[in-house]
């Protein structure tokens, strides 16, 4: 008994103790804040419902972007920091299509055709940028030490930001509003903003399509095989380079679609618009365990919900005056906490591969 305790003591370092104290303190704050908020009764069920819907909309956008980070990490073991610009390039380019549709009134006469075209333009642009990024910036560095492509990714991120700033200007552009998605739909006593419903439904469909592509198709399976073992994939006759390109294209398609949803939700585009959602989606991918595909989806939705519900729930009761301003702080606190306590993500360790 005593021996066991001593052995345990040897394994616990002072850093561990400090970490657990911090963790415990944060947990206590969350519980205290939530209890106080609920006791104060300042928010009713309608408020919470709104927070949840907003969180789902935001979170499903994060989930779509996070897929790109996690898929690319899978095949190349690198964080594609330029993915936020892949995300930006699509909706920003499609903005010009949207604006033209809006001016000619086509947007409101044929809203679904217009949206379809806007989505296609955005997805194709983002996928094209992602494809070129891999071809030009990352492929020549495939054999280089891992830090080098990472730095290149950061460089590519700046490069793309300034290219798009140069092409499209540095101002904010207001994304046109589609009339039929203005207003609300009522479900009994609850109301949903129509464009939130649009975002949630569209993102859910895209995520489902993406997931079944990766799980069920020949190419999807090959991408998973390449993620596990490149050399063995070569030996199976898989064209590894082509699969890596395809992975970037898929991530780009998802990011482009997410970008349009984001632009429809926040009604504007800007050359710097990718930065925050990009970093949030990266957080989501880490939350779900980077490289883990369902993890990235759940991580995104979870992060969206925490960001939307969290400020009011955790912070309001603590007497913080403008809790909503702290939503980004909450998101990044989550990132730091996960990196400290569960670097493998909330979904836990990936299935251990038995090396028998």
């Amino acid at each position, binding site marked *: 008994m005593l021996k066991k305790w001593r052995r345990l003591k040897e394994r616990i370092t002072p850093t561990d103790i400090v970490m657990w104290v911090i963790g415990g303190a944060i947990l206590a704050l969350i519980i205290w804040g939530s209890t106080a908020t609920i006791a104060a009764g300042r928010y009713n069920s309608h408020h919470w419902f709104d927070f949840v819907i907003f969180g789902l909309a935001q979170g499903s956008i994060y989930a779509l972007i996070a897929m790109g980070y996690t898929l690319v990490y899978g095949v190349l073991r690198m964080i594609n920091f330029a993915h936020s610009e892949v995300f930006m390039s699509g909706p920003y380019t499609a903005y010009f299509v949207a604006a033209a549709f809006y001016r000619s009134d086509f947007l409101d006469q044929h809203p679904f055709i217009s949206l379809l075209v806007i989505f296609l333009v955005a997805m194709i642009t983002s996928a094209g940028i992602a494809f070129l990024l891999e071809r030009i910036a990352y492929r020549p560095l495939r054999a280089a030490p891992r830090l080098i492509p990472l730095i290149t990714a950061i460089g590519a991120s700046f490069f793309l930001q300034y290219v798009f700033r140069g092409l499209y200007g540095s101002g904010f552009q207001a994304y046109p509003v589609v009339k039929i998605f203005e207003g609300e739909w009522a479900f009994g006593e609850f109301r949903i903003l129509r464009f939130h419903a649009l975002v949630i439904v569209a993102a859910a469909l895209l995520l489902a399509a993406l997931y079944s592509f990766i799980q069920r198709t020949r190419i999807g399976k090959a991408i*998973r*095989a390449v993620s*596990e073992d490149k*050399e*063995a994939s*070569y030996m*199976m006759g898989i064209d590894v380079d082509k699969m890596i390109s395809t992975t970037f294209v898929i991530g780009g398609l998802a990011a482009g679609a997410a970008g349009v949803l984001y632009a429809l939700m926040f009604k504007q585009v800007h050359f710097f618009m990718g930065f925050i959602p990009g970093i949030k989606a990266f957080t989501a991918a880490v939350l779900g365990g980077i490289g883990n595909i369902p993890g990235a989806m759940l991580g995104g939705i979870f992060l969206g919900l925490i960001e939307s519900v969290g400020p009011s729930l955790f912070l309001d009761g603590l007497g913080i005056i403008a809790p909503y301003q702290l939503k980004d702080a909450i998101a990044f606190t989550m990132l730091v906490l996960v990196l400290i306590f569960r670097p493998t993500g909330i979904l836990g360790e990936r*299935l251990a591969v038995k090396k028998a």
Partner: protein
Amino acid sequence: MMAMLEIQHVHTYYGNIHALKDISLNIDKGEIVTLIGANGAGKSTTLKTISGLLRPRHGTIQFEGEDLTRYLPHEIVAKGVVQVPEGRRVFGRLTVTENLEMGAFAITDRQVISKNLERVFALFPRLKERRHQVAGTLSGGEQQMLATGRALMANPRVLLMDEPSMGLAPVLVDNIFDTIRQLHADGTTILLVEQNARIALQVASRGYVLQSGVILLNDTAENLRMNEMVRKAYLGES
């Protein structure tokens, strides 16, 4: 008459490590040829060079009259030169069936794929039972079956096997070698790399002995079994 697979004067380097020094070997259609050697002799390097994973600095690799060194790894698989890698290297997070489908990646005809799948399941009924299981949770013996089956999915004309007996209990080693005999009887051409020289020289008709990147001996299996040096160094006899 040229051999089916003919390797001539191949030199392969890792940076400036000279791993293969003037390797020449050949395999005729329908033969089992073994390549034996100690750890680090260059056996895996030889197979990787044939598969196109490593580029030889000099030399040629002719397969049915074509120079393989001009092709990419996946093209070489499509030509029918297929490797069962050392240490099995199954895709641990893919199911047994998905692993087998990856083996058939070079084949696009669905009918051929399902015919091959039936053939592999007939050869390894155990894999059929476990076809929905994730490969990472298979036992070592089952993983070796899967690695072999996966290569067979590609319709190999030459099968390159890298130490199939590695890390397996004696019973399982016997099983794998029974499979190798059966494949041979079905007409598959096999280049068998082994450290277990005893068993390799039982199934093969000819053998090469590799040491420090050089082919030391090249003879029939029977003569190699009798060879003084082979008996001392590789069969553990005195």
